[in-house]
């Protein structure tokens, strides 16, 4: 099956099996190193990428669903200015995720920040706590995760000069 897709800003035309999971596609075709394929769909949460700006577990996305869509992996995201907001938040809260989950956690935070950066109300803390359970790694506690999200959101709003009601 021929698939046209934009990965990390590069427009690509790939020929591959239509049911191939996105994480394997990224590992095999793109040589992406930030994604892990340890659970094979078991929802360990270590293969998060941004699909059209939203976090998804790439092991649950088949190749035929990414046609004409935009994918951002951690490799691509870490070269953007948006990444600096999250990096600063990690430093400000003195919370640093381990090497295994750093990429996925960062992309998950980015997805949450994008969802809330223009919102007038504050985010639902219970929902963020639940989101933190998506990544099956205990290097960062849930309260710490919420703190980092809050800090990253503040950084983003400050940088983009978002005025809230």
């Amino acid at each position: 099956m021929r698939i046209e897709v934009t990965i990390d800003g590069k427009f690509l035309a790939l020929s591959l099996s239509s049911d191939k999971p996105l994480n394997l596609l990224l590992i095999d075709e793109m040589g992406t190193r930030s994604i892990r394929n340890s659970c094979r769909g078991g929802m360990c949460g270590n293969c998060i990428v941004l699909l059209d700006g939203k976090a998804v577990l790439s092991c649950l996305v088949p190749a035929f669903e990414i046609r004409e869509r935009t994918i951002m992996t951690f490799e691509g995201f870490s070269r953007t200015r948006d990444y600096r907001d999250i990096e600063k938040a990690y430093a400000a809260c003195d919370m640093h995720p381990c090497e295994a989950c750093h990429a996925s956690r960062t992309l998950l935070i980015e997805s949450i920040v994008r969802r809330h950066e223009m919102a007038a109300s504050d985010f639902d803390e219970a929902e963020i706590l639940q989101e933190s359970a998506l990544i099956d790694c205990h290097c960062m506690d849930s309260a710490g995760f919420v703190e980092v999200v809050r800090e990253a959101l503040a950084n983003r709003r400050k940088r983009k000069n978002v005025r809230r009601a």
Partner: protein
Amino acid sequence: MYVELRSPNIHEPASMTEYNNTIVNYRGTTPFLWAGGTEIMSEPDFYPALRGNMEIISLDRIEELHHFLRNDRYAEFGAMVSINEIAQAGKLVLPKILLDTINGTATRTIRERITIGGSLCTRRFKTALASTLMILDAAVELRYMKKRMHSKWFQISRIYDKDGRLDVPAGALLSKVRIAIQQYDYQYLRSVGSPVKDPCDACTLAMVARFEQNSISYARLIFTLPDRGFCYSRDLDNMITSMQLPVNISRYAQIENFVIDHIREGFADLSPLREDRLRGMIHDMIKDINERVLSYTGRDVDRFNG
């Protein structure tokens, strides 16, 4: 590594008419109907697939399956509406127990990919969402092929057999789900364990009830055992409605035993962990009913809805 594998054919009909044509063209084969894909993709042997000549019909581009509408009596959702959209769209009108079930299903990132149609048609495990919809008397529209395409509405409980397996005509498509808009005096949901990671020991209890002074006038109770199916019956409902409230603490064990025996009769055996969990759930539920009844003044019905 997977170069020699045959890539499955993907059909992406854009309307129900195109879907019908696809089904007619592939009559005799059993195509995969692809909704959100969360369950299929999490099967350990999904990729590389061992099945040859696989035909996948992706339902994502069928506009009709993404619609939802609401009137005074019910809300109707297309099968491809994600459960997260349902929770957001129906926040103010849908029964609280349904919203709690959806919010407890998974994190928002996963919920955005789970569709309501897909979660009712899972094969490996049964979801709490299906059981909650059963006690809320939800109905589904099935489209299936005889000589031509038919559509018919069924109560959700009628699309499963007694073991909780999906029992619909081959190639049938679950196209819509209709949920009555009504609130209950009492709604209780308790879930333990993950149906995906721990299907053998996970269990869920859901109950809705209406009170009348010191008794329960209407009750629907259902247990979900993800690997076995659903346990609900008139006997359990009658047992709840016959309870004198508040329930005396000496009767707790009696009720627990009755329910556990009833589940055993339906599902053969329960693991010790699952039995403990079920006993705990029943105990907590009766305690919760007692608390609500003892604090009920008869005026503020909303207090029962938490």
